[in-house]
């Protein structure tokens, strides 16, 4: 926990330094990011990283590999819902330990852009929770691929590499060329990270952003449900 917090803060400083250098080279503003917005973007991003848990544990896949998943499957629950509940619980804890500290750090030590209206705070919270749900749904799909692949570490690694770049963690999605930005907003990736940051900064259309997140949360959870159903019906459980 402490280690996670420290890592978030240290990497946050690195990112601030790099983006600040980029801003200087671009005469103080790139897209709609000035220095305060950039700092805010970095520190919220660092906080969200642990909260939405972009890079999960691949635990379900490990349990499929070992065959322990039989225990999860014979319980009288909907496995995906149970895991979502667990992840929301984790999010509650991560809110205090991972989301808040980097933001406080950023507020205290760097120029920070607060929301223009106080109504943005609750909307930011809603957006962050939706981001967590979309992130869970994506991780669940990556995890569930193990039912077919048995060893999904390749896909898991691919997800870890691409998601950070495409969701707006490495650089804001608005730094991408126009066509790439448009394409990206057709995918669920911005819903993972860029969306709550945009809501906080007041960039773009808040309602549109939230609807984008809601759509992907529902669609991906639905896909996960179908995948799980199919997995249970056709797939071989490993071992004795």
């Amino acid at each position, binding site marked *: 926990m402490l280690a996670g917090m420290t890592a978030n803060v240290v990497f946050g400083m690195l990112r601030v330094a790099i983006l600040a250098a980029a801003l200087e080279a671009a005469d103080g503003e790139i897209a709609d990011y000035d220095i305060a917005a950039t700092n805010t973007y970095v520190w919220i991003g660092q906080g969200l990283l642990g909260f939405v848990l972009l890079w999960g544990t691949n635990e379900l896949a490990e349990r499929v590999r070992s*065959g*322990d998943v*039989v*225990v999860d*499957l*014979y*319980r*009288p*629950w*909907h496995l995906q819902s*149970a895991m979502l509940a667990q992840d929301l619980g984790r999010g509650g804890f991560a809110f205090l330990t991972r989301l808040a500290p980097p933001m406080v750090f950023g507020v205290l030590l760097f120029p920070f852009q607060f929301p223009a209206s106080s109504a943005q705070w609750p909307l930011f919270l809603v957006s962050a929770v939706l981001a967590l749900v979309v992130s869970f749904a994506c991780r669940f799909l990556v995890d569930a691929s193990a039912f077919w692949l048995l060893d999904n570490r390749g896909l898991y690694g691919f997800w870890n590499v691409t998601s950070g770049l495409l969701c707006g963690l490495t650089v804001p999605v608005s730094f991408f060329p126009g066509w790439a930005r448009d394409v990206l907003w057709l995918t669920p990736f911005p819903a993972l990270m860029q969306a709550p940051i945009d809501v906080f900064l007041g960039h773009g259309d808040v309602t549109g952003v939230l609807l984008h997140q809601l759509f992907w949360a529902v669609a991906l959870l639905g896909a996960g449900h179908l995948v799980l159903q199919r997995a*249970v*019906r*056709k797939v*071989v*459980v490993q071992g*004795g």
Partner: protein
Amino acid sequence: MIEVRELRREFRIATSKGLRRNHKTVTAVDGVTFDVRAGEAVGYVGPNGAGKSTTIKMLTGILVPTSGHLRVGGVDPSRQRRDLARRIGVVFGQRSQLWWDLPLQDSFDLLRSIYRVPAQDYRTRLDECVELLGLQETLLTPVRQLSLGQRMRGEITAALLHAPELLVLDEPTIGLDLESKERLREFLADINTRRGTTLLLTTHDLDDIERLCPRLMVIDHGRVLADGPLDELRAEVTPERELVIDLREPGPAPDVPGVTAVRSEAGGLRHHLTFRRAETTAAQLITQVVRQVEVHDLAVVEPEIDDVIRKLYQRQLDQDAHR
């Protein structure tokens, strides 16, 4: 409780050689038929790969049968898996349903919520299990720190908190020492007789069967080889019994009509006489033996359950060979 008719399950196994990928179909369960009535205790035995675990996975709804008819407690397991899960308990000897990092007590509390057990019932059942299984000391210990014996007792408690009608145990005594095994068997026998919980257990430890299960089913290569009371199977498959006599002085074996095989040990001090139980009684044989030689000690040996099962396999092999 359980109704199984012509149950089959095939698997496609990939057989890769170099770049070529092929599949072959393996039949793990091949036309199994049996019934288990409520309140019975049935032992399900067979060598590794016989199809035991595959059958159990189908009974619990985790695996879908390739064909055949299957009902557990009146429902189709794979279609109504969640309804069924509320009514049955499953213990896998080699897997854990407890939360590794949590104390036993917390795992039980979580299961209470998952199975929605009323608080009062939960208290009564938990107290009963804790007392009979001697878990008082371990309730607050994280599961990862429990010994195997303690963990298995925890697993069984976990499977009984929702008072299942059927308890399926897949090798529950694997890896346990003799005392822990005995304690577990005693507890299961008690649950079976007092609560009327139906038991179905697979095992490699035949003492489990002898102690717990009036009925035995033997399976191999996905087929049921035998099904019936242990005593009957024993009489049917191994009609011979053995009389072991220790003589006072070394000497030749007594010559008794009805004895089909004789084996001597210890330079003629001990003789094993095999006789068919249908033709001679032990009493008749002993009378005749005592008349001929001076006996120091004697014992009548029933065939071991291992022998019974080995003979069943052998019989099946012979039948297959003749076909």
